[in-house]
């Protein structure tokens, strides 16, 4: 089952070669064996999973199965799932059993996808290494001393180690793409507004976007068909007709214009990552694509702009954790203010506190124009760079990250250095564009290299097409780490 795609699993189920219960039990066994090493899951609940599997098997017996009914997936622990512990990687929510389902969870349930468990993540999705999780770091299946990336590091590691055939993730500044790159899997961050944020615990609301993580572009397309869709409960959900994200997968790439941003191939890009990207470009040229140099001059400011906007929105969103309605409350306090202050001091980890404080400051009286407003103006300039580039090309291609996965602990003490590891992914969120990462080789250290594709608004099907065609002529996405 190790190399099994969603499509193959669905065939196994449809032909009666396996039941959903059997598939789920296989994956649960693998999770039980590997999770003590990788720490990719925060919560596993075999009884609940198997009950969902049996329900899917009954649907199939009644002839009411859809394309993926019975195929299990894992969910990032940022998605509220009724009856499941939903921690968001934080002590603040370590005891929070969600009383309702996120829209994404509703969609997955309606499609009959049993949940294999809730995956580990950076606390409140704030981090690029999974080291800020209250539940301990996730380890990279390709190198146990390396980080899996973050914040969707648990989902990425789980898929890479085939503890789940696919998983959900969320991406605010690269949190699907960067861990996908570090773990050698395929992940898609859709156009902002495509996947509902309802029940997805908020970090930075104008940037947060859920998306699929799987072993291949085809599987991401199948999962997008389940996850995407209008939801009136998310005020920024876009009302658009439903799409079939698999519709363009087989389209040839002849004549495709690939834009190469010169800023993404400049200083700071490690030589081994650059080599893998160059080799992938040669492959795309063989498939009939042309390349053109483009420029994203303002993208160099995307990290500073992001570290104003995201913390500002986070400081507002995380004000709700007050020890009154749900989550952690400090055991001892003198009065209401003291209760708030101790609850938040004890319930939040360091990185979350840093970002709340940055956000509080940039929004405070007298500083708003210099920081928040300036960042919003630069955000427009960053988006305009992409609009200009898409006049010249169909998709933009570059590395997902400047290096392969770094060592656990390497950047933990230096927040700024950690932030800069997302230099190629953040601008995409600021502009609200779709982007994806797919494996394209290995670095000098034997760790996976991720290739990033960025498209214009609503071009997910095209990105998936480009990635799928590449995956038809390469086998990087089928490589499997040996986890001992």
């Amino acid at each position, binding site marked *: 089952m190790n190399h099994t795609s969603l499509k193959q699993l669905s065939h196994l189920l449809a032909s009666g070669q396996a039941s959903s219960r059997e598939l789920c039990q296989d994956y649960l066994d693998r999770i039980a064996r590997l999770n003590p090493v990788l720490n990719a899951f925060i919560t596993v609940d075999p009884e609940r999973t198997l009950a969902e599997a049996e329900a899917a098997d009954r649907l199939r017996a009644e002839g009411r199965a859809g394309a993926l009914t019975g195929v299990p997936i894992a969910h990032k622990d940022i998605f509220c799932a009724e009856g499941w512990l939903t921690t968001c990687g934080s002590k603040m929510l370590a005891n929070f059993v969600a009383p309702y389902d996120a829209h994404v969870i509703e969609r997955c349930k309606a499609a009959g996808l049993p949940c294999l468990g809730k995956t580990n993540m950076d606390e409140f999705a704030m981090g690029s290494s999974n080291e800020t999780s209250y539940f301990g770091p996730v380890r990279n299946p390709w190198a146990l001393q390396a980080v899996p990336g973050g914040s969707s590091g648990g989902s990425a590691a789980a898929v890479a180690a085939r503890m789940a055939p696919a998983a959900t993730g969320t991406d605010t500044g690269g949190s699907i793409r960067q861990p996908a790159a570090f773990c050698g899997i395929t992940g898609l961050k859709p156009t*902002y507004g495509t996947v509902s944020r309802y029940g997805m615990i908020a970090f930075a609301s104008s940037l947060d976007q859920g998306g699929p993580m799987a072993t291949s572009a085809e599987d991401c397309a199948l999962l997008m068909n389940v996850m995407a869709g209008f939801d009136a409960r998310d005020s920024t959900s876009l009302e658009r007709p439903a799409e079939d994200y698999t519709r363009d997968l087989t389209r040839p790439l002849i004549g495709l214009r690939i834009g190469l941003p010169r800023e993404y191939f400049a200083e700071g890009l490690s030589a081994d990552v650059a080599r893998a990207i160059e080799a992938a470009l040669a492959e795309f040229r063989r498939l009939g694509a042309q390349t053109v140099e483009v420029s994203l001059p303002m993208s160099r400011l995307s990290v500073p702009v992001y*570290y104003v906007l995201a913390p500002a929105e986070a400081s507002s969103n995380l004000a709700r954790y007050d020890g009154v309605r749900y989550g952690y409350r400090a055991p001892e306090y003198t009065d209401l203010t003291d209760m708030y202050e101790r609850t938040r001091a004890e319930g939040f980890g360091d990185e979350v506190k840093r970002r709340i404080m940055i956000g*509080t400051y940039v929004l405070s009286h007298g500083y708003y124009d*210099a920081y928040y407003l300036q960042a919003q103006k*630069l955000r*427009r*300039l960053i988006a305009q760079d992409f609009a200009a580039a898409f006049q010249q090309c169909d998709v933009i291609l570059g590395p997902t990250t400047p290096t392969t996965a770094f060592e656990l602990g390497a950047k933990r003490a230096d927040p700024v250095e950690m932030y800069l590891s997302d230099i190629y992914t953040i601008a995409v969120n600021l502009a609200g564009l779709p982007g994806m990462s797919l494996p394209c080789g290995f670095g000098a250290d034997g760790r996976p290299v991720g290739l990033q594709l960025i498209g214009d608004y609503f071009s997910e099907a095209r990105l998936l097409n480009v990635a799928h065609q590449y995956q038809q002529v390469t086998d990087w996405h089928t490589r499997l780490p040996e986890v001992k």
Partner: protein
Amino acid sequence: MSLTLEDIRRIAHLARIRIDADEAARYQSQLNEIFHLIEQMQAVDTAGIEPMAHARDVYQRLREDVVTETNRREAFQAVAPQVEDGLYLVPKVIE
């Protein structure tokens, strides 16, 4: 720009996060490094540029003013730290 210890204590209080002296010193140095990165923004002249609040131009949808939710007070209060008779309990605020 450089944040003082006093600034850090004020920000922490605004954010309702209790910090001790050691933490204040640590946050001071870390936040100053982060703001050093953020200051790069000031080098760009953005006069006349419209701020971008959102990726897409969307407008707030309106709905009919009717009740759409069912009462799930018990389920929601089941996850609260302290409740009594359907009320959330907090420390006394009025003597």
